[in-house]
């Protein structure tokens, strides 16, 4: 099967899984409740620190209004990150159905990439959009403000698309590691947790200790949440955007290549589990 045919099959798979994710509208609404609740708690906590703490000036270059916007964007984008391996694929690894998958005349990596990323996007885009909309409707003190400038908004959208690609490639990288492990989810879970903590979703990366800033700018996971959000609120100026998008793109390619290589190696000695 040629590359072009694989791509066509992947496009169909993407459409199917995407539509599937939309079936669970109640889950999306339920999810919006959770995100909005978390968002409000975060807003309260950051406001208290910005207004009543001993050193409110030490804000890492992020004003309170910018932080409020950041919180809502982070809540909206949070869903893009995989916090576990795609359920369908994990089931196939565990039950031995991976053997059947290998019989298909397609590149397994792109097959799974299309499937897992579409499943993710289908399940979260509505939740994310509604969460961000809720953020824009909050009382003035907690509100998501409009983007810093038109350029900032355009760059935000570009970074958002790259964030989706990066999250998907990272999820596939972790999935590739999971193939052939027979003793549980520990290592993959740790990898997912590390990405979550360093993405900016826990704490905006600018508010981490100053001596870590250089590392935080270059590490891969800021591309999940922090880079798009910072471009939107303007703490990352448009003239620095190219470098930030470059970091996202670089890690995206690296995870893609590494994921493919690992998957190929693992499939060389694949253990068909279950029975």
């Amino acid at each position, binding site marked *: 099967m040629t590359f072009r045919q694989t791509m066509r099959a992947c496009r169909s798979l993407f459409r199917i899984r995407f539509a599937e994710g939309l079936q669970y509208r*109640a*889950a999306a609404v*339920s*999810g919006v*409740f*959770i995100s909005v*609740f*978390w968002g*409000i*708690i975060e807003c*309260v*906590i*950051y406001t*208290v*620190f*910005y207004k*009543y*703490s*001993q*050193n*409110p000036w*030490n*804000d*890492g270059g992020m004003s309170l209004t910018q932080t409020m916007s950041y919180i809502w964007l982070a809540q909206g984008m949070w869903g893009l990150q995989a916090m576990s391996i795609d359920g369908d694929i994990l089931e196939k690894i565990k039950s031995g159905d991976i053997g059947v998958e290998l019989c298909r005349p397609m590149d397994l990596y792109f097959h799974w990439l299309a499937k897992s990323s579409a499943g993710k996007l289908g399940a979260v885009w509505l939740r994310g959009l509604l969460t961000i909309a809720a953020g824009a409707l909050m009382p003035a003190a907690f509100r998501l403000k409009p983007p810093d400038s038109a350029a900032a908004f355009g760059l935000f959208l570009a970074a958002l698309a790259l964030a989706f690609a990066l999250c998907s490639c990272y999820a596939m990288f972790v999935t590739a590691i999971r193939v052939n492990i027979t*003793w*549980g989810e*520990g290592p993959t*879970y*740790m990898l997912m*947790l590390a990405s979550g*903590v360093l993405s900016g979703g*826990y*704490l905006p990366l600018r*508010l*981490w*200790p100053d001596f870590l800033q250089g590392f935080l700018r270059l590490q891969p996971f800021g591309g999940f949440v922090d880079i798009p959000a910072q471009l939107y609120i303007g703490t990352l100026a448009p003239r620095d955007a190219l470098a930030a998008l470059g970091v996202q793109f670089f890690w995206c390619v690296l995870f893609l290549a590494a994921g493919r290589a690992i998957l190929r190696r693992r499939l060389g000695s694949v253990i068909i589990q279950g029975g």
Partner: protein
Amino acid sequence: MGRLSGEFRIYIKYLRMHLLSGIEYKGWWLMLLQVLIVVVTDPISTILLFSRFGSIGVWTVERIILVYALAVASFGLAESFCRGFDYFPWHMLRTGNFDRLLLRPRSLFTQVAASFFHIHRLIRAATGIGAAAWALGKLEVPLTALNIAVLAMALAGGFVMYCGVFVLTSGLAFFTIKGLDWINILTNASYQITRCPEPYMPRSLKNIFTFLLPVLLVSFYPASTVCGWGYPPWLGFLPLPAGLLFMGLALIFWRIGVRHYKSTGS
């Protein structure tokens, strides 16, 4: 009384069984490590915020950690010893396994509560208690018998309250079967509010988490009574009654749910 001790024996027997079958897996202790890492990373953002911005008036990082740790520890206890209800909507109701419990001549409550037990869940409780002890040491609180009793009652009340949350979820699950994710607001998200000092909390949040789900009653007020933060000391004695009241209401939902039940799954 005889019946109650009989139920308790069954409960312990179930837990022993789950424990023994759990540690048959070679890498079971890896899960302990995993939960420990999750529990320790959770308050990182709060600690980093304090290290950047400094204390909020009189509210130092130790005080906040104490309140937070009390809430987390009681959640961990409930998660450990009432795991069956936590899992109930997902692993019992949807699969139809609940039907089998209905056939047995024992109380449903015991059977469901003991239907799952994971030793690694105790790590959350242990870490929480450890962190609370550290904070108490830093705040130089004398460990008199009364103080220890107040803290123990706070943990017991919180334990009962969070068990009540799981029971309530299970009761609601009879009606909805799916779409119960929002309950996360009452579990993992609920103790996040303790990261905010009580005087700075918006009134509506304070009311919700005092009167609807008494998280503040089982964490903040006992801590205040023990450390003397200027709130009426009797507030520190409320956790147990509040927890029991919440559990009572949850049990009503559970009863209604069981009566409504018409089997699911296959």
